[in-house]
């Protein structure tokens, strides 16, 4: 073999080796370019998980603080040892109230200090002190005591056994106690005003660590070199920028121009376009059930004299009846009179999914056979006739002629309000107004500023108010079901604003929560019966959930959304130059 051939072979070998090594080198930490995610909201208010209370802050906190108990991204259930969570497993003692949590020993803060049970205890100390402005006071009502057994074992004793105690712990985060001690000391009351909240020196345990915050513009995190759960052995994206884009049209244009890496909820107006372009290979897309639900709350009690559900001794207060909605047949008629297909086309661009309850079909407690009301205007009118609302003067509006609660001759008139400025809500209720007027209702529709709407909602002075609510992930069946209990019927403060009270429902919800042994099938049957009662009694008209469309640029490798969202493997996203 002559020298030229040897050199050629050596060079070729080097080239081949370089080609083999190159992809591996591209997987080094921070080699994947920054991820730029739009923030359609306001600035985060704090990066301190103890006092955070807004979704934007949590969006950032969840990227740079580990969870206490994690959620499996595929099943969307709590799981010991879940990615990015400190709890590897837990035991429940025979008393049902003592939980022993075993913590991982391979997580460290950004300054190299191990994350331990003491860090969880610091969080609990602050929250349970009652001195902070934390929105997690629910923990105070549930946790009796806790003890750091060793660096990786923590025992929490609850004040009563029930089946939702793990849900109670979902807002718990480990915080870097050694740094918080210095920054906040024991001045829990002064925590809100501490500059450290927006400039945390030590974060970690998750994919990224804090870098900087530019008010009104963006929050920036950098790849965490010590992230223990990275899919590819290191965090590939160089960083994560949470960029404020205040207009949805502009947000989508920025995405189309490649300025945003991904969009977690494509606006309805852009869905068809994005889907089509996704099919043509311009974007990656993924559709998943939404975590919000639209409903119309119907006030069943006298709106002229709003009262609490219970007196100070826990006795049920007679709150009278709403003159029209106090009759369940009228509420059912509204359900039967809703043509969802028409609503879906006119208000939701055919992206809505009819629902019969506040549980998603994917939630474990969803009972088979729970169906939304069918569109049946004849049945609706028959129910109104039966309820004593007939159109005796032929003007198209029914009047009370032998009805249960309204004065004789009173028209079947209802005030329906929803939040102004939300185009899909406005379209929805405009269509429903027409549909219900066809039945003989006189629907007076008003679009009201959101703060004002909430005031009327909690004051219980309304007839019907349409809003939408987010659903917890993982689903906690008691989360929204508790709203229908009389304990939540507190004028001005509680959310049983419809003043609904059904003793059988109350019993089912409490029993399902406190079932000894927490057998899942038994609980599912209880919740199933509860949801059926609610569907039949209709204190709310459950209208729609929907699917959200997620979209990402094609240059993001490993973007693989699951039921639990798209960010579960954000550490592995590799963004190449386009």
């Amino acid at each position: 073999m002559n020298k030229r051939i040897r050199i050629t072979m050596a060079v070729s070998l080097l080239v081949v080796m370089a080609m083999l090594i190159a992809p591996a080198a591209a997987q080094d930490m921070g080699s994947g370019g920054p991820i730029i995610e739009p923030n359609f909201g306001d600035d985060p208010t704090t990066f301190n998980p103890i006092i955070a209370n807004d979704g934007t802050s949590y969006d950032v906190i969840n990227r740079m603080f580990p969870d206490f108990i994690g959620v499996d991204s595929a099943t969307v259930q709590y799981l010991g040892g879940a990615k990015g969570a400190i709890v590897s497993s837990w035991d429940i003692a025979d008393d049902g109230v003592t939980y022993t949590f075993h913590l991982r020993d391979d997580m460290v803060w950004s300054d190299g200090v191990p994350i331990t049970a003491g860090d969880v205890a610091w969080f609990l100390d602050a929250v349970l002190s009652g001195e902070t402005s934390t929105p997690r006071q629910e923990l105070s009502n549930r946790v009796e005591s806790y003890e750091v057994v060793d660096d990786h074992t923590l025992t929490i004793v609850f004040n009563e056994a029930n089946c939702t105690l793990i849900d109670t712990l979902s807002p718990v985060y480990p915080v870097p106690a050694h740094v918080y001690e210095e920054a906040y000391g024991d001045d829990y009351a002064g925590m809100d005003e501490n500059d450290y909240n927006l400039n945390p020196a030590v974060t970690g345990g998750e994919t990224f660590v804090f870098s900087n915050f530019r008010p009104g513009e963006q929050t920036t995190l950098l790849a965490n070199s010590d992230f223990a759960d990275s899919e590819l052995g290191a965090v590939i994206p160089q960083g994560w920028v949470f960029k404020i884009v205040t207009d949805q049209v502009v947000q989508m244009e920025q995405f189309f121009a490649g300025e945003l890496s991904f969009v977690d909820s494509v606006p309805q107006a852009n869905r068809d376009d994005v889907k089509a372009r996704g099919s043509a290979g311009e974007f990656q897309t993924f559709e998943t059930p939404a975590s919000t639900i639209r409903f119309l709350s119907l006030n069943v009690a006298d709106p002229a004299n709003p009262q609490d559900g219970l007196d100070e001794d826990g006795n049920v207060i007679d709150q009278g009846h709403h003159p029209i909605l106090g009759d369940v047949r009228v509420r059912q008629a509204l359900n039967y009179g809703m043509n969802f297909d028409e609503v879906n086309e006119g208000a939701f661009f055919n992206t809505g999914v009819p629902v019969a309850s506040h549980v998603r079909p994917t939630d474990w407690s969803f009972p088979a056979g729970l169906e939304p009301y069918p569109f049946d205007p004849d049945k609706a009118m028959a129910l109104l006739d039966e309820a004593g609302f007939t159109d005796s003067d032929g003007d198209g509006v029914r009047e009370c002629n032998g009805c249960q609660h309204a004065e004789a001759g009173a028209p079947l008139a209802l005030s329906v309000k929803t939040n102004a400025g939300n185009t899909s809500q406005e379209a929805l209720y405009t269509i429903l107004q027409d549909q219900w007027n066809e039945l003989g209702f006189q629907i007076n529709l008003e679009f009201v500023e959101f703060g004002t709407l909430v005031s009327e909602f909690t004051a219980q002075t309304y007839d019907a108010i349409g809003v939408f609510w987010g659903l917890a992930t993982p689903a906690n069946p008691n989360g929204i079901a508790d709203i229908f209990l009389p304990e939540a019927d507190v004028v001005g403060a509680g959310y049983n604003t419809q003043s609904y009270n059904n003793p059988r429902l109350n019993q089912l919800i409490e029993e399902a929560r406190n079932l000894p042994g927490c057998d899942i099938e038994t609980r599912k049957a209880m919740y199933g019966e509860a949801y059926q009662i609610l569907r039949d009694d209709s204190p709310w008209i459950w209208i729609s959930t929907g699917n959200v469309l997620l979209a990402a640029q094609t240059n993001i490798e490993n973007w693989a959304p699951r039921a639990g969202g798209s960010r579960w493997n954000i550490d592995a996203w590799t963004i190449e130059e386009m």
Partner: protein
Amino acid sequence: MSKYIIRRLLQALPIFIGITILSYGLMAISPGGPVEALAFNNRMKPREKEELIYKLGINDPLPVQYLRWLLGDDWMRWDSDGDGLADGAVFFIDLYGPVLDDRGKPTIDETTGEALRQPLPPGDQRGILRGDFGNSIYFKRAALDVLVERLPATVELGMTALVVGVVLGISVGVLAAVNYGGWFDQSSRIGAVIVNSIPNFGLGLLLLLFFGSTLQILPLGGRCRTTLDPTCPPLPERLEYLILPTIVLAAGAVAGYSRIMRSSMLDVVSEDYIRTARAKGLGDRAIWLRHGMRNAFIPIATFLGPSITFLLSGAAITESVFSWPGVGRQAVNAVVQRDFPVVMIVVIYASIANILGYLISDILYGIIDPRIGYN
């Protein structure tokens, strides 16, 4: 001059106080409040919501809330023995608050039948007259900080738009007057009507879609390129981000100033002294620029002061469309969030800017027109 300025500032004090009373009153009586905005969350229990109401003091009578905001509450309820609980209070302030039960209702003592009460913490606010603007209810930090961190962006955009608006507006107005009845005069008039007819958000979106999305020659909003850096680069390196919002903000000013300048110039050129200048053989250039323009500036000065106020107070719509991190956008957010302290600090800032703006106008009169004195 200084006496005049001091007198004007003193005269402005009652106006300022009046503005604060009106603004605070309007805000306080508007339906919905910060608790509704903060606590619309089904996980929040009634007691927590009621505690928040007590903590924010929004259940106090409106005059007490206003006094607290103006003069603070450290003198209303105080702690003499240093145990962290109030032990003295002025006559119109409660020293004790109710013990709330889970429903957020006062707990009743079964033996006495009276509501249980607990000592409240002492007041810790000093009020705006002592430099304490309170904490943002939403951001949970000093409202002053929230304003101050947004000011640079607003000043940057506002000053640019003002300079562009005034310079272009005056130039167009002068040219239109010089070419009275000509094509430039006609087209500038039509242009002014069109620009004034398009709302800012519409114009902003149109420009963004055309220059940012279709032609892709200008950025789609923001103040600088999105990077991992902790700050935006210096202004000269990111001028392209200023172009579109400046056009939107300056468009109205150009249209307005050009019309005022045009009519003012046309008024001036029919004056005797201009005819005298012509008779003396002065050229058109000298007549228009040296003699005409200076006198025509007087009406411009009337509008310049309020324009400064408008632009420095933040242009809420333009800042929102362009994701510009300024005061105006924050003010809108604060109103939606019912973040009263932030709303009020923006009102104070805008009021002061307004008062100063009119003062500048008055001073400019004297500079432009020597006949005007300040005695």
